[in-house]
């Protein structure tokens, strides 16, 4: 997280831009293999350089972190907001609203989402890819949060303190947002935290499959995808973004897990 925010700073410090080519750091005769062992790790390029272009891996990884995290956080925000509101309404209101929202969730969860997301992204008009990724991830992500919120809201709706509020003359809105929602912040926070790594991985997966953000903006998924052919010749190039991704996802999972245990 820090790394993402500090991306401009880190690149300023190392003096490397994520898009600048460094032909001197690679050997064209060997297909552009970085010069030197361990993927061309040197004082100048602490995590080595990208084969074939010589771009600085550290700079790309930190800029990629910025993008990956931004997209997944926004997607989480979007999915959580939609999921919470619709889940609350469905779980609390029941009846007709529950049926419509429930069906919608069923529908979205029946989509082979990865295939569909890829297909959608591949036909989507050329616009702001980042926003589109957020929208698509959010669209297919909210039912999972919505379902949990709905269940919790349903359980809470049967609790006597909700009845008590009604007897006191509280409006439906007041009950939903003053009485029920505060009791859901815990689970919502946990689910949201646990869904972030999913979005990071999915974003990376989409970029990995070539329908993510546009070059030259680096993203982890893209870096890993372009490292795939090199995994035998230059494993470091593949491992660096891979490990960053793994560690980040793991970190969010651990935090979410700990939050879940706290409750």
């Amino acid at each position, binding site marked *: 997280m820090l790394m993402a925010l500090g991306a401009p700073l880190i690149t300023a410090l190392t003096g490397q831009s994520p898009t600048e080519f460094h032909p001197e750091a690679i050997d064209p005769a060997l297909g552009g293999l970085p010069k030197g062992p361990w993927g061309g790790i040197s004082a100048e390029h602490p995590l080595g350089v990208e084969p074939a272009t010589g771009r600085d891996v550290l700079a790309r990884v930190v800029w990629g972190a910025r993008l990956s995290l931004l997209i997944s956080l926004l997607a989480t925000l979007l999915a959580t907001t939609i999921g919470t509101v619709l889940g609350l309404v469905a779980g609390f209101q029941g009846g007709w609203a529950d049926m419509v929202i429930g069906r919608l969730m069923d529908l979205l969860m029946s989509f082979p989402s990865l295939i569909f997301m890829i297909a959608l992204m591949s036909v989507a008009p050329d616009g702001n890819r980042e926003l589109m990724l957020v929208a698509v991830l959010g669209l297919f992500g909210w039912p999972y949060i919505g379902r949990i919120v709905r269940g919790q809201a349903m359980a809470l709706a049967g609790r*006597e*303190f909700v*009845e*008590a*509020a009604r*007897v*006191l*003359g509280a409006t439906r809105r007041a009950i939903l947002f003053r009485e029920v929602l*505060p009791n859901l912040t815990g689970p919502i926070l946990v689910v949201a935290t646990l869904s972030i790594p999913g979005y990071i991985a999915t974003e990376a997966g989409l970029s990995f499959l070539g329908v993510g953000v546009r070059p030259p903006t680096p993203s982890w998924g893209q870096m890993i995808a372009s490292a795939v052919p090199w995994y035998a010749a230059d494993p470091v190039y593949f491992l660096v973004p891979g490990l960053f991704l793994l560690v980040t996802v793991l970190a969010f999972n651990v935090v979410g897990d700990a939050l879940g245990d706290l409750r």
Partner: protein
Amino acid sequence: MTPLLEAEGLVKRFPMRHPLTRRVTGHLTAVDGVSLTVRRGETLGLVGESGCGKSSTARLITRLAEPTGGTIRFDGRDITTMGEATLRPVRRDLQMIFQDPFSSLNPRMTVEAILSAPFRYQGLKPEPGQIAELLRRVGLRPEHAERLPHQFSGGQAQRIGIARALALHPKLVVCDEPVSALDVSVQAQILNLLRDLQEEFELSYVFIAHDLGAVRQVCGRIAVMYLGTVVEIADRDELFAHPAHPYTAALLAAVPIPDPRIERARPRVVLSGDLPSPANPPSGCPFRTRCPRAAERCALERPTLAEGAPGHRVACHFPLDTSLGLSRDGARRAGPRPAKGAP
């Protein structure tokens, strides 16, 4: 003076759904034509076994559930079909205390917030010191206002629930098993408190319990429910002295008395069979399947609540009380009938 609450022929029916298919497989009649009146300043008790519709009746009276049929008049106004907005001012006078002291308090709110909620939801503001006064009234200390519900014992939590119900000085408080979840000693405190408050605030109660002892302690009049209907209603002492309905008699006989000599000397009244399902009630008199006096007529004709002695009404074709036309010890003669299969 008009009664404070008049409920006429209340009916509540729930659709029953198959757990998997969600298809409506039938209807469950939780409340089946209940009529009650609560006079100003009195406490009406509602007793009966689990599932007989006590809570459902309470929820109908407080308009937490929509009645399937019947009317409710409160303080001279028909509130049966009032919308939420018009109902809101009425709610100030019509409050409720719940069974589970913890479940009825929002675990995320401090006592302060819980006790100011009645004001807030009515568009009012508590006066300074009012909340502390409320706490004091129910036997808690002002510094408790900062705490969260889980930091209290069950009895204390129930006191908070009571304070909340009383915050706006209601006229009627519906208490749905307010002491069932509590230990005897705590139960006694709460029962005492309710009585004290009644005097102080000129309250009327509808007091629901399955424990006849507790009901007897606080109620002036008692209605006995069975399978969604009121089978007997009378003044407290009359009911305990001269139960007219065989069910009431069985209920009284089944209450264990904490005195070995008395308890062991009492003949045991053991009703046979189980409570029928409200989804599939027996024809005619709902109690006839377990009734030691049941006759042919009971299966054909549903008895209506008829007044025998003044103020004592019973729904039975063959009531027990002599003053109501039959021998008093009828229950003893007919029962005990051992449970089927038992030696």
